[in-house]
């Protein structure tokens, strides 16, 4: 028996085992890369919808709570796209108006006649905005329905936010 014989390396079979292990690892790592890219896109879409929805509904609820009454001439109730014009007061107690409307699939604000631009980001599309009012003997409630969609063509994710606020200024 020659000295080289006892240490003569691996057989074809062992090589096949190695190659298959490497193949499995390669598939796994490619899968990992792909899923991470996909997950990042998904997370971005979730968070842009959440952010847009929270900012829009938070602002509208705050303004409705401060408001005194609805200006019906500048308001569209019950249908999409809704428009809401509120009679409210500024920080010094002077009367002013506040308007919410949809333009180019985003929520826009007009503060006392001055265009203030959009408050929902460019990464979402506002697909539905409906205002409803509920009048009572003592006050008034405004109900908001808003649906935001991810603006990427490949994504169909959308979420609806529902909020209502009683006008504290109307009491």
């Amino acid at each position, binding site marked *: 028996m020659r000295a080289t014989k006892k240490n003569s390396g691996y057989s074809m079979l062992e090589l096949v085992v190695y190659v298959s292990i490497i193949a499995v690892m390669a598939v796994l790592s490619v899968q990992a890369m792909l899923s991470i890219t996909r997950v990042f896109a998904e997370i971005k879409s979730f968070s842009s919808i959440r952010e847009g*929805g929270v900012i829009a509904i938070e602002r509208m609820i705050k303004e409705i709570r401060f408001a005194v009454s609805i200006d019906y001439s500048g308001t569209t109730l019950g249908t999409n796209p809704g428009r809401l014009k509120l009679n409210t007061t500024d920080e010094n107690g002077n009367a002013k108006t506040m308007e919410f409307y949809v333009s180019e699939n985003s929520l826009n604000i007009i503060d006392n006649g001055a265009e203030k631009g959009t408050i929902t980001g460019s990464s979402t599309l506002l697909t539905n905005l409906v205002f409803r009012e509920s009048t009572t003997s003592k006050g008034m409630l405004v109900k908001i329905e808003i649906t935001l969609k991810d603006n990427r063509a490949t994504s169909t994710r959308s979420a609806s936010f529902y909020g209502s606020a009683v006008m504290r200024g109307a009491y």
Partner: protein
Amino acid sequence: MFYIHILQNKNNDSPREKLRRFLSLKNFGGQAGFGLVEVVIGSAIISLALLGVISVASNSLRVADHSLREAQAGYLLLEGGEALRSMRDISWTNINGLSTTTTYYLAFSTTTNRFATTSANSFVDGIFERSFTTSDVFRNGSDNITASGTYDSGTRKIRMNVSWRERGATTTTLTDFYLTNI
């Protein structure tokens, strides 16, 4: 490496043996190289690391999904409170007349444009279940709310619940508040 390996083959091996050596990953000039056990352990460590990365990715997706649902549920809770406030504004009996042992749900009628309580379970968007229960309020001699004392017919404690199914488990978010007769 293989080239050197072949040159180093000074023994007159058979062609079969040469091929075997050629295909060998080990035994370069007496170097130990990697054994099967080392390769298996190494690949297991790398696979575990990759699995870790994948599980972090899927967990962060779950968290992002949850935070969107939680934001939606938060506004539904808030809306429930405002809806009951509005019903209170219509008439205090809308609140005071509710049973303290029944679970109620809220429904907005687009014909009357008002919120009303129902005993039928309703889902918002087919996802969120919003329900509430009420309980009586008692006050002590200094008019503070206590667990027992004099029954106050002009105040009700409300517990508003919003729950939804998420990956096989039910998540509930709730808030307690008082409504008074004004």
